């Protein structure tokens, strides 16, 4: 996998984040290549979600730069909406729009951001619903869907914008165990199709199977990184070993 500039999808340079006096991110720098699946793991409070949210400026980094597909996201005059349209995000609490049906949730952004016609957006939306296995739920409202179904609709909604990279902020942490599998299956098929993914998660089985690269965060810094086999089997840091011994 080449390291030329064209292959770098997301680059973070020395990201620092303060919440009042709390130094939550202490200089995170990393690169995510096109087509890579990168997992971020670590104990609670290590700053994983904060880091992910800094990348599309849902949280404003206190300092540092974020570059996504060549565009400097942290630039003061950047067209943030345009950048965000290229980054898909899936949240722990799904955040589906409760006043819209599943298909309406999915076609909202393509129509109002990309100017797609209702027909186009609906067709593509149905294709995505088929992909996540929920065609028959197209006209259901979120409160009529189970957690796993909602999350799959949320993934379809993010995919509807045809993003270049997908961020997942603990996508299965709010799900009952029997529904985690169906969501992970969707994520696996996305990875197989070559989507660049950045996943904050505790699902070690999934990560071991699918991730190309793992970042281990603790106390606001990346304490270790590498391929899953290497990190899980031969962790070099003591803190990594401590953390892994608790979760594996």
């Amino acid at each position, binding site marked *: 996998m080449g390291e030329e500039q064209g292959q770098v999808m997301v680059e973070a340079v020395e990201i620092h984040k303060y919440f009042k006096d709390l130094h939550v991110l202490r200089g995170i720098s990393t690169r995510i290549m096109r087509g890579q699946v990168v997992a971020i793991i670590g104990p609670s409070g290590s700053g994983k979600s904060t880091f992910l949210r800094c990348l*599309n400026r*849902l949280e404003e980094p206190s300092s540092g730069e974020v570059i996504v597909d060549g565009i400097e996201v942290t630039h003061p005059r950047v067209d943030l*909406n*345009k950048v*965000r*349209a*290229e*980054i*898909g*995000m899936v*949240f722990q*609490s*799904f*955040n*589906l*729009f*409760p*006043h819209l049906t599943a298909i309406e949730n999915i076609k*909202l*952004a393509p129509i*109002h*951001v990309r100017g797609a016609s209702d027909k186009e957006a609906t067709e593509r939306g149905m294709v995505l619903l088929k992909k996540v296995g929920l065609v028959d739920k197209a006209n259901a*409202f*979120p*409160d009529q869907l189970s957690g796993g179904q*909602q999350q799959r609709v*949320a993934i379809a*909604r*993010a995919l509807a*914008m045809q993003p270049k990279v997908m961020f997942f902020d603990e996508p299965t942490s709010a799900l009952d165990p029997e529904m985690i599998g169906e969501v992970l299956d969707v994520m696996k098929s996305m990875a197989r199709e070559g989507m660049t993914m950045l996943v904050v998660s505790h699902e070690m089985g999934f990560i071991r199977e699918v991730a190309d690269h793992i970042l281990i965060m603790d106390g606001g810094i990346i304490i270790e990184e590498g391929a899953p086999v290497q990190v899980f089997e031969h962790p070099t840091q003591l803190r990594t070993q401590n953390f892994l011994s608790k979760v594996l």
Partner: protein
Amino acid sequence: MIIPVACDDKRTGRRTAHEHYERRLWFRRYAFLGAMLVVLVLYAIFLLPNTQKPSRTQWALITGFFLLVLAWVGSLTTDDEKPTWMGAVAAVAFLFVFGWLFYRYSGAQWSKLVFVFLNKGVMEGEWVPLLEGLWVTLEIAILSAILGVLTGLILAVLRSLNNWMLNLIIIAYVDVIRATPLIVLVVVVYYALPYVGILLSAVLSGILALTLNCSAYASEIFRSGIESIHAGQVEASRSLGLSSMKTMRLVILPQAFRVVVPPLTSTLTGLLKDTAVCSVASIVELLRAALQIQAWKANPTPLIAATVIYLLILIPLTRLSNRLEVRMKTRLGSAR
């Protein structure tokens, strides 16, 4: 007496519920009870002393009768074995008897009261001015409501931009308007503005004052509705690439709508009542029209008529807004 709910079982010879009923003690049958109630009511109407000032013995008779009715109705309504409709009928009968006793024996001079407050003669030919006043009331109320709600919505959306200067101005506006009694606001708009060259007709100044008042309350209602929407909704919408304004229009406001309808409808009902305050600005709305008739006919019946008209409009309005509130609640709840 507990009656088991049994099915029809003539083959085995076991008694059905109906047969149990037939064998009940005769004085507990529903028909008998109902008949007794009717007898009591008829006695109240025709056989109680027909005088406004009963003597001592007559009072004893009346009190005894009342207690009897009370006891009878009480036993009917509190007995769980009796159907609920029976309790309802008994309660209605009781209210009727009570009202009748009050009417007869409370010593009120009903005919005099009717002459003063419900005088048909006074109102003859005066309905048209009263209804013209009502028309003005409705005009003012509807215009102020629309303008006030729109202004309030705009103010709330501006507040959501979190610009500190804008926020300061809006907060000052809302605080001043809400702290000013409406009648003072109307008086200031009507009497003071002309001194700075702003000359508005009476009706327009009434509408202006009511709009200002409504907009302040409406903006707070909308603001709290907008803020009640889970932050995750905004995050999801923004991360799809939707702008701030599009997020507000497509995601936040549709959800906030359900939250704001109850307080908003009660504010608007209050607005309709507040139109009466505009009478101090010489606007001839319903109240002032009624006062004018009262002044030249020297009889307060027009005021009673105006009150009744207010009730006829406001009670259905309140019921309607309650129904709306219930419908909003049974639909989708707020974001998860």
